[in-house]
């Protein structure tokens, strides 16, 4: 790729690093020199990713964290800072979706989606933000939302609400923390091919969806590297509170 980014000396914490986006973000940040705290619920997956990053000469530490549990969040941040040093970059990535029409959504569905996608990121950013403020060295927080934050999709009401909430959360935190040189931005990706959705997007129904996009294509995980690295670096010093769409024009 034409870009290069030097994150030597930075410590990044990535949530939902056991699969998909989070796993990819952890690899990308580590490959640019950051030390990465990789968090998620499945310890075995974290161990595998840690070994993989270390095998490539990077530095990583797997820490089990459940973003539905505030105590688990605070503990993980504690462990990360004790073991790796002060967190400079937070990638609030963990998220779930439950595809169901509004009439069929249960209260449990609603709570699971909103707690994982919105409350968890809020508590985590709050915990990391407090520490960044106390140290006075600033920091970068990247919240991973979705194009569903600003466009409705059938069956994804709670998901869309949680991601719209995340955009508002980002702007509020950016406002309150601007004076502490903490930059907080939201990435809103479109459909990107991952292990989890690859089968669907190669099915007849999935291909129909892909062909309905203006560019007739899904994103690739590598397509997110540039903006991720920019927002994690000092080169985005004057970007805060921004909502960045990266969707290949899919919602147009």
């Amino acid at each position, binding site marked *: 790729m034409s870009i290069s980014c030097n994150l030597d000396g930075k410590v990044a914490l990535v949530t939902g690093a056991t699969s998909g986006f989070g796993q990819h973000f952890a690899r990308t940040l580590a490959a640019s020199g950051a030390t990465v705290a990789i968090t998620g619920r499945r310890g075995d997956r974290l161990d595998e990713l840690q070994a993989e990053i270390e095998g490539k000469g990077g530095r990583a530490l797997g820490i089990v964290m459940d973003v539905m549990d505030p105590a688990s969040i605070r503990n993980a941040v504690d462990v990360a800072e004790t073991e790796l040093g002060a967190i400079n970059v937070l990638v609030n990535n963990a998220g779930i979706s439950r595809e169901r029409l509004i009439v069929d959504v249960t209260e449990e569905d609603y709570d699971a989606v909103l707690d994982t996608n919105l409350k968890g990121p809020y508590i985590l950013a709050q915990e990391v933000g407090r520490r960044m403020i106390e140290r006075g060295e600033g920091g970068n927080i990247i919240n991973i939302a979705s194009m569903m934050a600003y466009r409705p999709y059938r069956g994804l009401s709670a998901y869309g609400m949680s991601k719209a909430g995340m955009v508002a959360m980002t702007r509020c935190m950016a406002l309150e923390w601007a004076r502490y040189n903490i930059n907080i931005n939201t990435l809103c990706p479109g459909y990107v091919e991952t292990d989890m959705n690859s089968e669907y997007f190669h099915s007849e129904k999935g291909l129909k969806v892909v062909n309905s996009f203006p560019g007739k294509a899904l*994103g690739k995980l590598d397509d997110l590297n540039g903006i991720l690295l920019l927002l994690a670096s000092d080169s985005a010093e004057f970007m805060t509170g921004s909502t960045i769409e990266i*969707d290949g024009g899919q919602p147009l």
Partner: protein
Amino acid sequence: MSFTCDLSGEVALVTGASSGFGRHFALTLAANGAAIAAAGRSRDRLSELVQEIESQGGRAVPVAMDVTDPESVRAGFEVAEIELGPVSVVVNNAGVATVHMVADATEADYDRILDTNAKGVFLVAQEAGKHMIKRGHKSGRIINVASISAFKAARQVSTYCMSKAAVTSLTRTLALEWAPYGINVNALCPGVIMTEMTQAFYNTPHGKDVIKRWPRQRISDPSSLDGVLLLLASPDASSFMTGSMIVVDDGQTL
């Protein structure tokens, strides 16, 4: 900068390159390897810029272009492509501003702002797209320079705000129409940045009061846009970004 981008082999046409943002964008793209077609009306200033780029080891040509005149835009692209080869990156930057309350604006004020900032951007993008579509198979990158004024009301700059909102609308439509050709069209929306155009006001006591109302109580220079500019100009690092509005305002609109 910790984030950089290799633009070797790219040819970038920058409009409004004789001053302010445009001049800075041309220098930044050139420093990262792109050959520059520096387009604008002021021949002397363009020649100076070209000399500066060449003295730093870069490659550039001056291109006389009035973005409000379709014939001048067409001829400018022709010169750029003859001299440097196919244009792969366009920074649609030329813009003008004026200050007047809506009640006091003349039709001439309105026409001057909208003709340059909206119609000019349209004409340049249209010409760029024609060339890029005809060639096919090569990524094209069009970066329209809008502003946070596209989203936020401000006194005395109604026509400027309207023109920039028009640019964001055009950006989305171009992204939609040209997605099949691999042409990505995005809008860069800077906040208030210190340039020749803004310094007269922001150096006054009133201007300094305005700066104090922003979350960070500071004003940056055009280099604060470098990272996003390079990302959007890159042939491979922003492949999945099109139709996006990217705000770089240090939190001014929060």
